[in-house]
Every structure is written in structure tokens, then in C-alpha cells.
């Protein structure tokens, strides 16, 4: 073949492969308002930055080679806001983006680039599970896996997953290995599809019940953010990555500070209730402290008595773990424990300093929590906390009771302890303590109850803890932002330029 013909052949092959599953299937998706795999890629990466790997890869079996462009998983490297990322975008129009012998090689190659070159890996999920003909019989077993490190996660570089349709098989496994997952409403994620599951258990299974957004944002906690459209999901990925370094050997990027960021500090005392029994939404307080519009909440609908969020202080990323009295009075339940632990592990792995905002009455005790393994979950959290080597700063806003005092960074579990004058320290609320310690109730003996309650309420103030030098400073809450910024300037310094030891980088990716 002459060169000219050869080049023409190349262009024709390219066009055919880029045509995905054909105009009919693509038109159907368009009508449903869903982006196709290449549109998603285009939306995500900077213009002209994508370099594709494996455009001419096809199914391994000859009978489907002609209808398996890119073998259903489009892979390559591009840039998001000028930062390199490796990407796999599942193309559902090609054999349902089923996981096959060849396209799993593509995923493994992208994962290898991510780890070895230190750039995030992004997986845009929509796949119907294993490609059954590839997997049947002994030959199917013998070609499966072929890489003992495939499901090994060491958090060398961030891994991000988007659930953008029916996600079974590889899309599910990689989501559960990821640091962060965004889901579009209407997408589903489960071990096997509702059809396979229905056949296996001989019962009709509803896909939404099996793996819809409510399940994964409220019950399993696998999904960090839920959105309505593909475009929103892709924007969320960009936002998420803006808080993280490209890999665990770098400090996170620094952004300009919006001019109005210092103004909201003044509002703290307007939002924070003067009455001890009144609740508030701690997210309103966080927004008064951090750079304007930098609050990025993770797992908003899961374990709601703890808020986990990224934010920036003076342009630099921080991870915030805050009790939220608005939900369960701030009592920490098992979901909140799991949420806090996974967030700690993520922040420590990517060199993001931690800020704790404490106002909690203790762990939520009860039979339900014990059945969920509360003691194990809270010790996991404490173990992770003690292994974290990023800077840790605790702000005790109000009550900080019980064993949970340690989980929230008390008792030398953080580098600096800032107290607000409203801080209330003790093992439990004095009025509960009277009954527990002395078996006296308000109803039975109001005079004695009051006397004992006053006794227990002694020595529980910010001044008492500061007097013992367990609190390093007592500040006007409106000075919290300035104080944190100054302390972090000091704590980010060191021989390692803000890079920690990563003692939890191989911890599980779900709890």
C-alpha cells in the first residue's frame, strides 16, 4: 500500500473507531439528555489536551471485533485546568462497555500511568459487568485478572470515580477503590445488574433499590456527592481535584484568596446560639471561617452529625471534620464514625492539614449502634487519627464530652488546641451525670439534684482547660480564621515541604 493510501486508511479507521456504537445508539442517548463517552471526555479535559491510548483496541474474539471500537472503554491522558490526569471513559454503546480481556488491559495501563507518573486517575463509569463470553470456562478464568496489583490501592495518586449510568462489574469495583465518587441521579451501582440479580435470587429487583443514589448517599456512604446531570458530575470532579495534589508526594495547589473572605468572620457570633440547648448548622460556621466559596462537602447525606469538607484557608487546602448539632444533637453515630475515618485517611494521604471543630455530646449510644459495631468503628477512627502526620488543629467551640473528645482531636491527638470561651468540657452533661454517678433524678429530689449538678458543672470551662495547658489559647470566635491561617503557616513548614509520612495510605477505601 502506498503511503497516501496508508494514511487514508489510518484516517478511515480512526473515524470508524471514534464513531463508537454507531449513530442510532448515540442519537438515542442524546434524546435521553445523556452525554456519550467522548462528549464526557471533551467536557472534562482542557481543549486539545487529550491523547488517546488504545483507539484501535478491539474485543479479543474475532466474531465481535468489527463492532467493538476501542473495546468499549476509551482511555488516555488529558489535562484538567492545566493539570495532567489519566482517564477511562466507559462507552456503553459498545457492547454495554462490558469488561473484557482487552479493555481491562486499558484500565490497568491507565492505572499504571497514574501511579508511576503521579497523576490522578479518573473513571467515568457506565458498564454492564463482565463480558460473559470472555469469561466462560477455564479459558475465561485463565485470562481474568492477570495482574495481582489490579485491586491494590496505595493512594500514590488520587483516584476519582463518576457513576453515570448502569454501573456493574468494573465500574463498581473501581468506584469502591476510589478516593471520591460522584453519582448522577438515575445511575445505579451494584455487584451485579438488577436483571442478573433477579435471576439469581428468583425475585424481581428494582434497580434503584438495588443501587440507586439514595442507597449510596444515605446508607452505604459509597457516593460522596450526588448531582442531576452528567455535566454537573464532571464539574464536581474538577472542583474535587482542585483541593488535591497530583500525587501523594506533592503539597496541594494554592489558589488566590477571594477578597471578601475575611468579612464573614464577624457573623460567627450572630449564627452561634447563646443558649446551650439550641442547635445550629455547623456548615454556616465553617463558611464564616474559610475562604469564600471554598466549602466543598463530602458525603453530605451520610452520617450527618459529622460534617467532612474540604475548604481553603488563605488559598491552601484544609480538611475539616466538624460536629453538626443540627443532626442528632451532634451525637456521633456509626455512619459518622465511618465517614470521619475515611476522610482522615484521604486528607493524610494527600497532605491536607486537618481542622477539627468540636461541639458534641458524645457517641450516640444504643443497641442499633452496637449491632453496627460502634466500638470497632470508633477505634478505627482513633487509630487513623493517631497515624495521621499532617498538621492537626482542634477548635473546641462548645461541648466536647466523653471518649469522643479524643476522636475529635483532644487529649494530645492534635498539634494545637484552640478554645472558644463557650467551651464546655467534661465527660457528660452534668444533668445526666448526676443520675449516672449518684442515682439522683430531678423529679425525685430537685434540691439535691441541683446541688450535685452545680458540683459537676465546676471546672468544665475553657479557662479550666487552658489553665491545665490542654488548650493552647482561648480566642474570640471571630478570630478563628486568622488564628488558623497563622498556625498553619507554622505547621506547614518543615523539612518535608508539607508532605506527610502516609502511614494510612494502604488503609481500606471503604469502612
Amino acid at each position, binding site marked *: 500500500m502506498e503511503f497516501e493510501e496508508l494514511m487514508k486508511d489510518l484516517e478511515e479507521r480512526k473515524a470508524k473507531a471514534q464513531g463508537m456504537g454507531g449513530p442510532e445508539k448515540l442519537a438515542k442517548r442524546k434524546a435521553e439528555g445523556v452525554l456519550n463517552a467522548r462528549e464526557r471526555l471533551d467536557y472534562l479535559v482542557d481543549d486539545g489536551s487529550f491523547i488517546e491510548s488504545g483507539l484501535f483496541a478491539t474485543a479479543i474474539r474475532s466474531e465481535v471485533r468489527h463492532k467493538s471500537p476501542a473495546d468499549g472503554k476509551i482511555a488516555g491522558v488529558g489535562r484538567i485546568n492545566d493539570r495532567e490526569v489519566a482517564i477511562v471513559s466507559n462507552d456503553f454503546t459498545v457492547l454495554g462497555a462490558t469488561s473484557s480481556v482487552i479493555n481491562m488491559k486499558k484500565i490497568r495501563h491507565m492505572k499504571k500511568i497514574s501511579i508511576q507518573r503521579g497523576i490522578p486517575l479518573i473513571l467515568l463509569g457506565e458498564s454492564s459487568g463482565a463480558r460473559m463470553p470472555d469469561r466462560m470456562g477455564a479459558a475465561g478464568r485463565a485470562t481474568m485478572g492477570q495482574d495481582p496489583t489490579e485491586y491494590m490501592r496505595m493512594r500514590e495518586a488520587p483516584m476519582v470515580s463518576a457513576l453515570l449510568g448502569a454501573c456493574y462489574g468494573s465500574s463498581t469495583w473501581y468506584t469502591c477503590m476510589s478516593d471520591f465518587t460522584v453519582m448522577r441521579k438515575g445511575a445505579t451501582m451494584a455487584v451485579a445488574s438488577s436483571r442478573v440479580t433477579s435471576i439469581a435470587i428468583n425475585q424481581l429487583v428494582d434497580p434503584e433499590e438495588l443501587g440507586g443514589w439514595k442507597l449510596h448517599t444515605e446508607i452505604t456512604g459509597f457516593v460522596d456527592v450526588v448531582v442531576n446531570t452528567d455535566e454537573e458530575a464532571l464539574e464536581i470532579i474538577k472542583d474535587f481535584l482542585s483541593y488535591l495534589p497530583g500525587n501523594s508526594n506533592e503539597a496541594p495547589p494554592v489558589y488566590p484568596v477571594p477578597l471578601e473572605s475575611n468579612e464573614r468572620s464577624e457573623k460567627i457570633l450572630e449564627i452561634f446560639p447563646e443558649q446551650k440547648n439550641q442547635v445550629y448548622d455547623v456548615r454556616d460556621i465553617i463558611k464564616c471561617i474559610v475562604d469564600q466559596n471554598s466549602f466543598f462537602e463530602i458525603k453530605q447525606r451520610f452520617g450527618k452529625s459529622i460534617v467532612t469538607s474540604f475548604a481553603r484557608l488563605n488559598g491552601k487546602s484544609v480538611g475539616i471534620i466538624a460536629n453538626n*448539632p443540627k443532626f442528632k444533637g451532634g451525637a456521633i453515630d456509626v455512619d459518622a464514625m465511618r465517614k470521619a475515618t475515611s476522610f482522615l485517611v484521604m486528607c493524610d494521604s494527600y497532605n491536607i492539614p486537618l481542622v477539627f471543630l468540636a461541639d458534641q*455530646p458524645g457517641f450516640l449510644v444504643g443497641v442499633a449502634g452496637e449491632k453496627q459495631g460502634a466500638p470497632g468503628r470508633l477505634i478505627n477512627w482513633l487509630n487513623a487519627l493517631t497515624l495521621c502526620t499532617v498538621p492537626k488543629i482542634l477548635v473546641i467551640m462548645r461541648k466536647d464530652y466523653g471518649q469522643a473528645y479524643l476522636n475529635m482531636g483532644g487529649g494530645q491527638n492534635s498539634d494545637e488546641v484552640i478554645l472558644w470561651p463557650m467551651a464546655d468540657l467534661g465527660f457528660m452533661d452534668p444533668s445526666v451525670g448526676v443520675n449516672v454517678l449518684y442515682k439522683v433524678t430531678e423529679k425525685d429530689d430537685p434540691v439535691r439534684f441541683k446541688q450535685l449538678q452545680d458540683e459537676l458543672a465546676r471546672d468544665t470551662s475553657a479557662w479550666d482547660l487552658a489553665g491545665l495547658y490542654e488548650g493552647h489559647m482561648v480566642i474570640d470566635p471571630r478570630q478563628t480564621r486568622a488564628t488558623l491561617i497563622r498556625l498553619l503557616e507554622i505547621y506547614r513548614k518543615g523539612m518535608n515541604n508539607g508532605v506527610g509520612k502516609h502511614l494510612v495510605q494502604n488503609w481500606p477505601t471503604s469502612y
Partner: protein
Amino acid sequence: MALIEVKAETTGMVWKINVRQGDRVSEDGTLMTLESMKMEVPTLAPEDGTVKEIMVKEGDPISEGDVIIILEV
């Protein structure tokens, strides 16, 4: 239209009921306030909807998981 059960998040006592039967409520709007752990803990609407039935009255002791309101969504 579907009916959903709003359950108590914590064990405690019904302190104040903030809605009446037939009221329209928005997601995260306060349905009632429970007294629990010496705090006034709000129970919030999980979705936009209409209050179909209130299952408790002020002063009632309640346990975590008790159905306290039925919402039509």
C-alpha cells in the same frame, strides 16, 4: 404521590411540633423539635411534601426509629 415515614433520629421527648396536618413542607424544613441529650434537636423533612399525619403529641417519649410523621411526597 407516595407516603413516606419520617422517623425519630434519636431517643428523647417531643418538645414542640412545628407543623400541622395538611401543611406543605420543604426539604430540610423543621417538622418537630425533640428534646434529646439536653438539646433541642430538630426533625427535618427528608423531601418536599405535605404533612399527611402526625403520629405523636408534645410531651410524648419517643425512641430512635419511631415513626413520628407521615409525609405525602
